[in-house]
C-alpha cells in the first residue's frame, strides 16, 4: 500500500528532510475538509466522554419510576426511558465506555497484527504457510460470529470484549502488514542490514517497521471505526457493556422492543450518536489515507 512518496529511507538520512516532510503532511491533513469534519465529531464525543458526567442536566443513572417513557419535552429534550432516566443525559455520557473499549482493542489488535505480520512476511517458508492457513480459517467466519462464540465461552466483561476484538483484528492487520513487508524485504536497505549481520529481530523492528508504518496507520484508523462498530454490535446482541451503563448499543438493545409501541426516542438518538461517531472516525481515516497515499 505504500507509494513513491514513502520511499525507503536508510536510517542515517538527514533529520531535516524527514521533519520537513512530516510538517508538510500535517499541513495537508489540517486543510482537508474530510479530516477536519471527522476530527470535530470525534473530539466532540471524546469531550463528552471525559466531561459529560459533570455537565449533563440529570444523573444518567438516577431512575424515576413514576415518569417512565415520557416523550421529548422541555424538561427532557430526548424524553425518558423505561426506568424514567433522562435520555439526553444518557446519550451524552454514553460515549465513555465505547471510547475506552474500542481504541484499546484497536491498539492491542494493531500490536498483535503488526508482530504477526512482520513475522509472516519476513520469514516466509513454513512459518508463513502454516500461519496463513490458520489466519485464512479464522477469516472465513464473519467477525461477529467469532466474537460471539468467544464471548459465550469466556463470559462477558469489558476486558473480554477488548481481548476478543483485538484477537479478531490481529489476522486482518497481519494480512496488510504481511503484504507491505513482502514489498519491503527485497529492497536494498534490508540487504545492507543483512550484510551488516544484523539479526532478524533488528531487521524487522528497526529497519522495516518504520517504512511500513504509514499503511499500518491507515489500517489502524480504519480498524478503529470497525472496533466501534463491533463494540456497539456486541452490546446490541447482549454481550459486552453491562447495565446500568448509558452505552448506546446497550440502550438500543434494551429498548428496541418498544419501537412497535411508538417509543421511538428511546432508540433513535442513541442510533444517531453511534452513526455520527463511526462516520467521524471514518472521515479521519479517509483524510489520513489521502495524505499517506499522496
Amino acid at each position: 500500500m505504500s507509494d513513491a512518496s514513502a520511499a525507503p529511507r536508510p536510517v542515517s538520512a538527514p533529520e531535516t528532510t524527514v521533519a520537513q516532510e512530516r510538517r508538510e503532511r500535517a499541513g495537508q491533513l489540517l486543510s482537508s475538509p474530510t479530516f477536519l469534519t471527522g476530527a470535530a465529531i470525534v473530539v466532540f464525543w471524546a469531550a463528552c466522554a471525559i466531561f459529560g458526567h459533570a455537565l449533563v442536566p440529570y444523573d444518567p443513572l438516577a431512575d424515576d419510576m413514576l415518569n417512565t417513557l415520557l416523550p421529548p419535552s422541555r424538561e427532557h429534550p430526548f424524553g425518558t426511558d423505561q426506568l424514567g432516566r433522562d435520555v439526553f443525559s444518557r446519550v451524552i455520557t454514553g460515549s465513555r465506555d465505547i471510547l475506552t473499549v474500542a481504541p484499546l482493542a484497536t491498539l492491542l489488535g494493531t500490536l498483535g497484527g503488526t508482530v504477526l505480520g512482520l513475522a509472516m512476511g519476513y520469514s516466509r517458508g513454513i512459518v508463513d504457510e502454516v500461519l496463513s492457513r490458520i489466519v485464512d480459517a479464522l477469516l472465513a467466519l464473519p467477525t461477529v460470529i467469532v466474537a460471539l462464540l468467544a464471548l459465550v465461552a469466556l463470559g462477558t466483561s469489558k476486558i473480554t470484549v477488548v481481548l476478543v476484538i483485538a484477537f479478531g483484528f490481529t489476522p486482518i492487520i497481519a494480512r496488510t502488514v504481511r503484504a507491505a513487508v513482502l514489498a519491503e524485504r527485497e529492497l536494498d536497505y534490508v540487504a545492507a542490514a543483512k550484510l551488516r549481520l544484523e539479526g532478524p529481530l533488528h531487521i524487522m523492528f528497526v529497519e522495516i517497521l518504520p517504512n511500513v508504518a504509514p499503511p499500518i496507520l491507515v489500517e489502524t484508523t480504519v480498524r478503529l471505526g470497525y472496533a466501534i462498530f463491533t463494540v456497539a454490535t456486541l452490546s446490541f446482541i447482549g454481550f459486552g457493556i453491562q447495565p446500568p451503563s448509558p452505552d448506546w448499543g446497550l440502550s438500543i438493545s434494551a429498548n428496541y422492543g418498544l419501537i412497535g409501541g411508538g417509543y421511538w426516542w428511546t432508540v433513535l438518538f442513541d442510533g444517531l450518536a453511534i452513526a455520527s461517531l463511526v462516520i467521524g472516525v471514518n472521515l479521519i481515516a479517509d483524510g489520513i489515507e489521502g495524505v499517506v497515499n499522496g
Partner: protein
Amino acid sequence: MKPSHALIELFRSTHGEVHNQLIDSLLAGRLNRREFMRHGSCLGLSLTTLGTIAGSVGLIAGPRSARAAGTGGTIRVAQNAPASAIDPVKIADGPGLAILSYVGDFLCFDRNDLTLEPMLAESWSPNKDGTVWTFKLRQGVKFHNGKPLTADDVVASIDRLADPANGSNALSAFTGYLSKGGTRKVDDHTVAFHLDAANGSFPYLVSSDNYNAIILPADYAGNFEQSMIATGPFKLEKYTPQVGASFVRNTDYWGGQVVPERVEATFFADIQPQILALQGGQADVILQAPVLQSVAVLNDPNFEVISLPSTAHQQLHMRNDMEPFKDARVRRAVALTLDRPKLVQGLMKGRAKIGNDSPFAAVYPMTDKSVPQRERNIAEAKELMAAAGMANGFETTLTTERFLEIPDYAVLVQNAVKEIGGKINLNVLDQGAYYGDAVYGKSPWLDSVMGITDYGHRGVPNVFLSAPLRSDGTWNGAHFKNKDYDQLVTSYIASLDIEAQRATAGKIQRLLLEETPVIFSYFYDYLTVVKKGMSGVVTTAMGQLLLAKATIG
C-alpha cells in the same frame, strides 16, 4: 333443625376427621368462602358439594360466566417457540407446556382461584395422616386412538415421571414425597399414591401445576411429537419445530362438545412479532405477554388482557455465609431500601402485587395476613447498618440473568442501596450462563453473593419454601441454613388442616422477615392477550391454555 343444618350434619357423619375440621373452621368464621372452596377442593371434595355447604351457611358465589353457544371456527394462537422437543417427560419451558395443554389432561386442574377441579380424576381423598391419597378415575374417557383410560395408564404415567432414570423435570416436585413404585393400582378406576412423607397438598403435585403430569397411554414408548396421543380436547394434526403446529377437534372428548374446530399455533422468536400478528389480524390469542414489552397492546381497546394474579416472582438472594451479607441486619437494611409500591407501579405497570419477603404471596389463602407488610424505611435501614458496623457502606456484585424485566429490577436495586452507602456492580448474564450447571460450585445462580432468579407460578408455596430456602435445598442460592425454619416447613407441608397451615405460615413469615435471606418484593400477574369479543378462553398462571370452550367474538 333448619334444612341447612341438616345438610351439614349429614355431611359430617359421612366424612372423616379432616373434612370435619374444615367445616369447623368455616362455621367459626375462620375461613372465607374462597379459602373454604380452595382447601376443600384440595381435600378432594367436589366443588358442587362445597358450593352447597357454603351456600347453606349463607355464603353465595358470584355468577359464573355464561357458556357461549354454537361451535366451529379456528383459533390462532401466537406463542414463543418451544425450546426443545415436545416430550411430556422432559419439558421444562412455557411454550412447550402450553402445547401439552392443548392435547393432554391431568388428574386434576388448578383453576385461577387456586381451587382444584376434577379432570381425569373424579374425586380424591387422603388417609388420616396424609400419607396415602386415593384417586377415583372418571369413567368413559378415551385416548385419541380410541383406547379407554384405566388405572394402568395413570400408574404408568406417574411412575414414569417419578423414576429418576427417566430424567424428568417433574422429579423436582416429587422428590421426598413420591417415589417410583409409590403409585399403585387399586382397581381399574382407582389409583392410590403411597407417599414417602405426609403431604397435605399432594393433589397439586398431580395437577396442572406439575405440568409434565399429563396422562399418557400405558404403552407410550417415546417420540411424542409424532402423534401426541393423549386425552385432551384437541388432536395433533401437524407439528413443525420452530414454525408451528395445528390441531383438530377431538370429537370424543370426555369434557363434552369442543367448540373450536381447529387450533393453529404459530411459533415466534419473541413477543414483538406476536403483537404485530395480533394487531394485523393474523392471530387471535397471545399466549403470554410480558408487561414491559406489551405496553403498546395493554391499553389498546381492540384487545382484552386476561390478567391472572399469579405467584410468579423474582427472588433477590443474598449469601448468608459471605460478606457483606453475613449479618441479618444488613440484609434487612437492603430490604428496607426498596420502594415496593413504586416497583409495582413503575416497573410492572401495576400488574403485580407487593411481596413481603416470603414465599407466602397474598393470593395464597393460607398466608397469614396479620403479619405486617415491610415498607421502605431509610432511617431504620441506616440504623441497622450502623449497628452491624457497616456505617460506611459496602461494595458487592449482583449477578443475574437477561430475562423479562430482571435487568431493570437489578438497576433499581442498585440505585436503592446507594442510600445506605451500598455500591453494587452489575453482571447481567445470558440465562443459560447464569444457571450454568445448576450445581453448587458451577453456577453463578447458586454461587453469586447477590443474585436475582426468576420463579414461575405454583398453586401452593411448597416448592418455594423448600428448594430455595431449606438447609438441604438444591436451589438455595442464599445458602440459608436455619434449623427452626426447616422444622417449620416440614410441619407446614405435612399439615392437612388449613388452620394449622396458616398458623405455621405465620411463624415462617415472621422468621423470614427477621432473617431476610431472600427478598420477595412483588408477585406479578400472568397476562394473556385476546381479540376483543373472544370468550371461553381459560388460562392458568402456569402457562396452560384451555380452548375447549373458546369462541371468537
